[in-house]
């Protein structure tokens, strides 16, 4: 433990979402006092009236470790996370080996603690080996040191309706939630991009919206039938938003996420066949983007989740069809959401905090995350210069990979600092190693 954590620290001139400018005294990783002109601490940081919000919480992160450490590790993903203002990430199960046993989820959890930059909460696989045929040991993962509550075969859909029903029912005993990658496999054989005008002219096999919507509709009905919690990963279609909206109106326990890239990018970007735009589910049309933005603004879509998916250069430096699906997300997520939602006046900062921190923490059950800025809350913060903008440079990312679709794009708002359990872990472009503090 560093001395900062044991002593006290004062954050001067923090602007809160309501506009108030305050000082915060942090003691033992917790907010001890909020006031004006606080002093008396050995360590004080002037936040220069930048916006202080609860640390962001990601429910959909591919950390790639174990198995693909050439593209990302738990440590490098943690560095990317805090660079983007995140204080918690959720490690998707599609690693090698798959996170389908207590052993693997505990390994990932421990690697997160060793990195020490943010919380790393493992997501367990729903089925053994993501094969979609038999349930993984969900209870063992729930009872492990990692205390897994969210389960997903993400990357693959739990397409067998009976298995999906059983999974939804089974996790009720420990208040678990199934996060579905909604993709009907038979409708997406060899699918390469959104099916529509662009795919017709490019001659790429289409991934139709109905393949997502059919699974969402089915799973909403299943969740209703068995009274379980369902979470829809990376919603991308206008029709999917409408299905979730209707389900919520009927009181069904469904939550949904949208990725930053689906809020900003459309399928016409595929026209040059650059695989940096290859992602699953695919980029959709402008009409879908607008429906997703409206859905996020009105709460139909509960949260933003990154689907951060690092890939080594060789997996993108090839013909489209041979390339891997996925985009980096952690370091650009906040700025993309600001650009898509706040600059367009569709959301304010309070709502952004709700969608990117409070709600994800509530859905996944991360009690020390997504807390209000008030005395007694854990000091997990992101500090943001909301008047600045930046140009994304893929060569200056903390992630080990370079596959960002936002390279050279100018985005609004800059993350200045990130605090995790009261420790400053990121400041002005630098990830601070915990050991150095």
């Amino acid at each position, binding site marked *: 433990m560093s001395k900062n954590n044991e002593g006290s620290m004062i954050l001067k001139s923090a602007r809160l979402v309501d506009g108030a400018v305050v000082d915060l005294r942090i003691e033992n990783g917790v907010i001890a006092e909020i006031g004006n002109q606080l002093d008396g601490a050995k360590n004080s940081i002037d936040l220069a009236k930048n916006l202080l919000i609860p640390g962001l919480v990601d429910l959909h992160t591919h950390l790639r470790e174990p198995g693909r450490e050439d593209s990302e590790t738990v440590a490098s993903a943690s560095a990317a996370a805090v660079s983007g203002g995140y204080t918690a990430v959720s490690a998707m199960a599609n690693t090698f080996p798959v996170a389908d046993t207590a052993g693997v989820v505990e390994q990932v959890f421990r690697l997160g603690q060793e990195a020490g930059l943010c919380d790393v909460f493992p997501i367990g696989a729903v089925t053994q080996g993501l094969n979609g045929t038999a349930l993984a040991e969900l209870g063992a993962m729930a009872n492990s040191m990692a205390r897994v509550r969210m389960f997903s075969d993400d990357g693959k859909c739990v397409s067998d309706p009976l298995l999906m029903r059983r999974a939804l029912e089974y996790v009720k005993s420990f208040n678990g939630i199934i996060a579905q990658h909604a993709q009907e496999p038979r409708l997406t054989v060899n699918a*390469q991009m959104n*099916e*529509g*005008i*662009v*795919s*017709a*002219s*490019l*001659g*790429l*096999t*289409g991934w*139709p919206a109905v393949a997502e919507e059919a699974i969402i509709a089915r799973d909403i009905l299943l969740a209703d039938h068995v009274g379980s919690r369902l979470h829809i990963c990376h919603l991308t279609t206008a029709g999917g938003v409408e299905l979730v909206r209707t389900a919520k109106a009927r009181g069904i326990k469904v939550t949904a996420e949208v990725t930053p890239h689906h809020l900003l990018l459309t399928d016409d970007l595929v026209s*040059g*066949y*650059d695989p940096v735009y290859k992602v699953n589910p695919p980029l959709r049309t402008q009409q879908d983007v607008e429906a997703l933005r409206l859905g996020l603004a009105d709460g139909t879509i509960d949260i933003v989740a990154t689907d951060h998916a690092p890939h080594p250069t*060789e997996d993108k*430096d*090839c*013909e*489209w*069809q*041979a390339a891997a699906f996925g985009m980096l997300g952690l370091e650009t997520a906040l700025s993309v959401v600001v650009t898509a939602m706040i600059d367009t006046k569709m959301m304010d900062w309070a709502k952004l905090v709700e969608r990117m921190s409070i709600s994800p923490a509530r859905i996944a059950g991360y009690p020390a995350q997504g807390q209000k800025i008030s005395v007694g809350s854990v000091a997990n913060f992101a500090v943001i210069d909301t008047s600045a903008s930046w140009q994304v440079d893929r060569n200056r990312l903390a992630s080990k990979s370079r596959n960002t679709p936002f390279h050279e794009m100018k985005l609004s708002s800059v993350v200045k600092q990130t605090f995790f359990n009261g420790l400053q872990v990121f400041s002005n472009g630098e990830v601070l190693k915990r050991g150095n503090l």
Partner: protein
Amino acid sequence: MDRHLLSINDLTRAEAFGILNTAHELSIISDGNLKKLPTLRGRTVVNLFFEDSTRTRISFESAAKRLSADVINFSAKGSSVSKGESLKDTAQTLQAMGADAVIIRHGASGAAQRLADSGWIQASVINAGDGTHEHPTQALLDAYTIRNSFPEYTDSFDGLKVAIVGDILHSRVARSNVLLLKKLGAQVTLLAPPTLLPVGVDSWGVERSYDFDQVIQSVDVVMMLRVQSERMLDSFFPSEREYSRSFGLDGRRLNLLKPRSIVMHPGPMNRGLEISAESADSHKSVVLAQVANGVLIRMAVLYQLLGGQTLGGTSNSLISSQPVNK
């Protein structure tokens, strides 16, 4: 001048007609017993074929050789899709060998554009068919063949009616032909079972029909596409016989054509499936002319990409700018 020919979209209408005109001039020279032109002497043209296609490769090879280029045939079966050598490594190898032009046939849509855009290679890239995307030289040779049959459309295809029949969804020939025929002014009708038309085809600006008997009576050109019988296994259509009855060009339908109308097919033909032997061998069929014209069109494209002229630039007549070499 664009250094590459990746898509019909790379060409203006004037440039497209320019290529047809160049091919015409080359045909005059060929008729004058001039087998070889010195235009590309010392230049290296690589045929980079990731898919088997003997007829297209031979067509490009003889085009390049008639322009005196050195030709390297690089058959790279097993692309990175099947975990062979990656497209990038292959391209860099060709760059090291000093290729001036790379003619690429690849099973992945967009492979030609990736080769041109990625910076892996400096050579001009000619798309000889990429997945289910485009096959621009096929469309150009088809247009050239149409023009030879209908001299009244030499300067414009305005008013010409063309039906393209068959597996539009998986056809790079159809995509390139739709783009080029529309660019030149023709009116295009697509005929296919709805399963073999892409979602999004409405944006192509063409007519659609499922009634071959009706459409065939009014068109000047009927362009048949190869249908792979494997499509049946994916339930695109129930059986070969049913497909053939609805969308095949048999003798009865052939007789519905107007007297001057022509029948085209990019080959290889599935006789008995999309086209009957009677239709394929009839006097209305220009299938063999298409093959012969393929060499002329590919000469014209190579000449204009490597010979230092803009695509379609016809100000310097081929005949006068080349030393007569008998």
